[in-house]
């Protein structure tokens, strides 16, 4: 039972890896950005666990800016991905402009909230 699940997991891992190599470069860049943002958020949470959460608004604004930009990047990835049939008539420039605008609003609010 354990052996079959580990073999399944290995198969899973290999097939995922092989198909991922085939994705276009711009999507890989966006994925890298998302991973970086999530990693930064995790570092902040670990730091909060060490030193305590005062002031809470600063902690929240830091974590939410990372999560927020990660989520917005995922939305950009969805809209730019040529294999998504729902968005084939959306220009990638428009998607990027929306992404920049939302990030601008996000970071303006974060700056106000940072204290």
């Amino acid at each position, binding site marked *: 039972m354990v052996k079959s699940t580990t073999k*399944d997991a290995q198969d899973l891992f290999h097939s995922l890896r092989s198909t991922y190599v085939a994705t276009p470069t711009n999507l890989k860049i966006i994925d890298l950005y998302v991973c970086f943002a999530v990693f930064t958020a995790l570092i902040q949470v670990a730091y909060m666990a060490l030193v305590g959460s005062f002031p809470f608004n600063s902690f929240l604004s830091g974590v939410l800016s990372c999560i927020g930009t990660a*989520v917005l990047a995922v939305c950009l990835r969805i809209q730019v991905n040529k294999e998504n049939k729902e968005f084939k008539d959306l220009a990638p420039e428009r998607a990027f402009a929306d992404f920049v605008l939302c990030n601008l609003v996000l970071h303006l609010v974060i700056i106000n909230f940072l204290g």
Partner: protein
Amino acid sequence: MGGKSEPAKSESMATTTTSPDLINSSFFSFKSLKLKTKQQELLLRIAILGLVYILAFIARLFSVLRYESMIHEFDPYFNYRTTLFLTEKGFYEFWNWFDSESWYPLGRIIGGTLYPGLMVTAALIYWALRFLRFFVHIREVCVLTAPFFASNTTLVAYFFGKEIWDTGAGLVAAVLIAICPGYISRSVAGSYDNEAVAIFALLLTFYLFVKAVNTGSLAWALGSAFGYFYMVSAWGGYVFIINLVPLYVLVLLITGRYSMRLYIAYNCMYILGMLLAMQIRFVGFQHVQSGEHMGAMGVFLLMQVFYFLDWVKYQLNDTKLFQTFLRITVTSAILVGGIALGVGTASGYISPWTGRFYSLLDPTYAKDHIPIIASVSEHQPTAWSSFMFDYHILLFLFPAGLYFCFKRLSDATIFIVMYGLTSLYFAGVMVRLILVATPAVCLISAIAVSATVKNLTSLLRTKQKVSQTGSTKGAGSSKASSKVTLDQSQPFQKNGAIALLVGVFYLLSRYAIHCTWVTSEAYSSPSIVLAARGAHGNRILFDDYREAYYWLRQNTPTDAKIMSWWDYGYQITAMGNRTVIVDNNTWNNTHIATVGRAMSSNEDEAYEIMRSLDVNYVLVVFGGVTGYSSDDINKFLWMVRIGGGVFPVIKEPDYLVNGEFRVDKGASPKMLNCLMYKLCYYRFGELTTEYGKPPGYDRARGGEIGNKDIKLEHLEEAYTTSNWIVRIYRVKPPTNRL
């Protein structure tokens, strides 16, 4: 327009076998007709919307025309006072305001405990008008804010109806919501309360969110996040949005309608909306700490899981592997989420649902545990008559609209169905929430009306066209022939359609008449000026409240402290400009219970309490002379209950006789000697109020009072208004001790 395209189709089908000349000429005339029709249609729509805009505004102006341009009721006076402060002192002072004039001696942090949306909106309109050199008084702006935003709501309703169904439904929705009594009740001119702006923000947020889900555009989702921010800044009812939207997303996920557009719309709105909402100090960190907001976070995490699974499924292209992966991920996600929620709730980090919202889920909770919430008349469960009064024909058009929505299910119609059903449930629990259900009911009813009228008119039109061209064609298509046979077998179908259309027209006109009557009779009273009919049918106005407040303003020292029941607190600070002990904010139950205890005790004990609170004047409202039934004697039992909730020395059965509340000779001795009784009925025993009745006849209770010979030891009468409605007493300083 569906009606127009159908005859075009049948015409083109019927004329396929006729000569080319006929095609060319009919096609050409139809083409030129179509251009003009489109422009005519646009003109018609703009004209209708313009008229609806004006109608929504002027339908709410009854009280301004009958009385004067003044602020109504109790809460709007606080909003008016804060808006005045904002326009005089500026935003920084407003945002950091600590008010020492209310809740003496505690004071109130106003900057951090109000929803600033309404005040900022009115101040912006005021500054905009001043910029254009219209020097209006801020009070006029405050009075007319609600009708202005009601007009804007009709526009949003039009666009929302267009998004859900089509332009016809949008137009009907705009008309229905312009005059619906459920909405008018809280947005008449003068009702300067949070709901005036909040319903506009609510509908705007929902419209922008549904638009974002339909288009999958990040820009619309950003718009809905801003709409949500406006809603959070305007009203505490934003909790409805932050629970309905995740519930809707959950329903879509369960029914298998997950899509990328949904992901984009919800995530952008949630993150940005949450961040923007936390900028309001009163809301603070509730979005991550309160149990009422956890549903949104849970759905957010669920969406991430869904997206991840979707992506993995797409990458793998192999179902067996994916199934195992699915099993592992879903079980682990649910496990982690459950553990986190459990730990958070058990450790107390995630606060449970607060009393105000918990009483919506369990309506009996407030009566047993929180008497202050239970005592407000707006929080009582709704009777059927209220539903009929506020909705009229919309009440049975609502299920018809639900039927149409279920026939044509899409993401948008699922949303409006959920909004309608959940808001109607809450409207049944609390009268005040009929307001929140009104836009949903209007929209769904509009769908019913629009779809029915469209079907009936297309029935009329198709019949005419086919009967004309049926004779000219030869073989024809089966569809046209079936229509011809239909026509011959049921020749009265056209007449039936006409009769039904007349019926619909009659219903809608009765609705308009009912709405206007309800607005005029029931919802246009300012509550601060009372009106009655004299002996000759002329109107008599009782302006006692304002008379008393202006007396306070002009005849008491500026640092005087007024004790009254919390209903009148806002009005006293706004119009009388004096410090009060408790007001309508009701944030400190113990303080209110202290006042309740003072009112229910005998004069000596009450004097002790009043000395401890530095009270200089006591204000009571008495309706015995005029028959006014919302006076303090009728509210007295609530004072006893609230006081008794904190000080067990006050026991409610002491004031009742056999469970009955009486003020005549048979009343309990504790009742006959309490401060409230003495203050209300002082010198009343000498007054003859009604012809043929003994002196001291209380017209509001319908009985002769018990204790007519009242002597006051520690207080003296300062002022009684001309109709005895408001009575003010001065607290005498302690006698000199030797």
